[in-house]
């Protein structure tokens, strides 16, 4: 039998020089996902292919819930639809006990279709139409008001709706000591806007003020910012109680917890620097518990974390289309997983692993997607084993945002499959065809 072939490489050795891009990280191929062979998945469902591990979702969810429930008596998670709103994914979270957290009329409809009772849907975001709000009021959903225009629109709508009350909360933004401070959503705490909004709401008989919501940022590398946020939320809640004699029913701390991905520009690997669920839970719950609520008036704690629950459950399988040499001698590898389906490659250095055996040799390469467009670059430099046309790769931790922010650009979106907890593979979103796109186009008669 002939020995395995590997393309010839030559690498200049620079003794004593730092490697700006770090050493290689891949030592073993990823041949299986939840005991299902990557090769079989790609043979059956094509390339590229998104794979979601139901087992990982459930494990991560249970780990997060446990971190909070062992520290605080009343905890509720709400699945952030925008992070991944494939119905099958949402249903796993709903089965685990998650409510739905939506930020548009479209997502709201999706949650209803998924069987989520209206009163367990949290409606966030700056864009809620009059029709959206009427539906949310009728369904007794929790409407998180983002701005005064929305507040006044609600008041107007309720004037025309007899004997109907809306369950509302306000989104609060604040300085938690981090940069950039998110102040575009909700009412500001420090300048008194949030308090003004609360006063305006409680003056309205038809607005039932139930909670406070914040979402201080995304990919938060410090748990302490949540302690600062929780403190300010508690101060607002207690001021409300002192002023009105009523208690706030819930505090919603939003999301923003990190996943294991590595941000571009980060010196250390994401997995080495991110806070754990326990770190976040400790910061939030200990602050609330020590803030001065009587035990019987402790508010329900709601969390809307998205990426930290789903990122690790997502894989993107792809194929090497070509390798080439750039003008400066660097290797370039072209794969079929472009930025069109991997939006998060704009801010993460995703982990890329070969799906077949390889030797100990590695090579620095630029990793390009398949699009004939200069933006389609997945990694400026990555040290990978020697890859050749037809080789397969597994991109890890892509479960968050990619299957919602993906673009129908130049090419079509691929199949998505889910491996259930017994190892059975289910197609959960079919790959698009040309009809998926052209069916929505209309050519005027004179151009036919």
């Amino acid at each position, binding site marked *: 039998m*002939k*020995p*395995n*072939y*590997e*393309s*010839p*490489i*030559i*690498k*200049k*050795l620079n*003794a004593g020089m730092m490697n700006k891009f770090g050493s290689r990280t891949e030592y073993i191929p990823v041949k299986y996902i939840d005991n299902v062979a990557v090769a079989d998945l790609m043979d059956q469902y094509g390339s590229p292919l998104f794979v979601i591990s139901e087992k990982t979702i459930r494990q991560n969810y249970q780990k997060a819930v446990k971190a909070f429930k062992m520290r605080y008596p009343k905890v509720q998670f709400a699945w952030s639809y925008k992070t991944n709103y494939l119905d099958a994914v949402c249903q796993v979270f709903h089965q685990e006990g998650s409510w739905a957290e939506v930020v548009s009329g479209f997502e709201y409809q999706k949650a209803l279709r998924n069987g989520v009772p209206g009163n367990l849907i949290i409606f966030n975001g700056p864009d809620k139409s009059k029709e959206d709000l009427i539906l949310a009021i009728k369904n007794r959903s929790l409407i998180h008001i983002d701005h005064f225009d929305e507040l006044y629109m609600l008041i107007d709508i309720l004037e025309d709706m007899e004997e109907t009350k809306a369950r509302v909360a306000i989104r609060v933004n604040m300085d938690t000591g981090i940069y950039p401070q998110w102040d575009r959503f909700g009412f500001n705490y420090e300048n008194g806007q949030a308090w003004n909004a609360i006063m305006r709401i409680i003056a309205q008989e038809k607005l039932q003020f139930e909670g406070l919501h914040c979402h201080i940022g995304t990919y938060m590398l410090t748990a302490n910012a949540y302690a600062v946020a929780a403190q300010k939320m508690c101060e607002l809640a207690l001021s409300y109680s002192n002023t009105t004699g009523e208690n706030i029913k819930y505090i919603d701390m939003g999301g923003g917890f990190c996943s294991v991905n590595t941000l571009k520009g980060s010196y250390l690997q994401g997995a080495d620097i991110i806070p754990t669920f326990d770190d976040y839970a400790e910061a939030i719950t200990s602050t609330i518990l020590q803030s001065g609520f009587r035990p019987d008036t402790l508010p329900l704690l709601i969390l809307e974390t998205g990426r930290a629950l789903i990122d690790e459950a997502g894989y993107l399988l792809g194929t090497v289309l070509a390798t080439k*040499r750039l003008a400066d*001698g660097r290797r370039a590898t072209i794969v079929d997983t472009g930025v069109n389906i991997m939006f998060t490659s704009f801010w993460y250095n995703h982990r890329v692993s070969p799906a077949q055996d390889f*030797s100990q*040799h590695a090579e620095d390469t630029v990793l390009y997607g398949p699009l004939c467009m200069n933006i389609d670059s997945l990694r400026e430099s990555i040290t990978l084993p*020697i890859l*050749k*046309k037809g080789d397969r790769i597994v991109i890890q931790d892509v479960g968050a945002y990619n299957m919602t922010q993906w673009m129908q650009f130049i090419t079509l979106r691929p199949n998505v499959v889910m491996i259930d907890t017994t190892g059975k593979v289910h197609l959960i979103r079919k790959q698009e065809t040309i009809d998926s796109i052209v069916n929505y186009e209309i050519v005027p008669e004179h151009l036919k």
Partner: protein
Amino acid sequence: MKVRKNIAISENGFIFNPLTGDSFSVNETGVFILQKLKEEESEATILQNLMDEYELDAHTAEKDLNDFLSMLQNYQLTTNE
């Protein structure tokens, strides 16, 4: 194309150029090609040798060999004399 005479090539893929002081590492396929070049084989022969030695199609062999030879040239390890 020939490998410069003073270039040292070890069996395990360590290359040393005493003229410039540069060192390089190559993988097994790289050593195989360099040895053939040392033996002053022609490119056509090396191509055939590669296909005899490994499970490999002609197009891949040709593409990879050309790429490797251009890198050797780039690093000034070869001469056209």
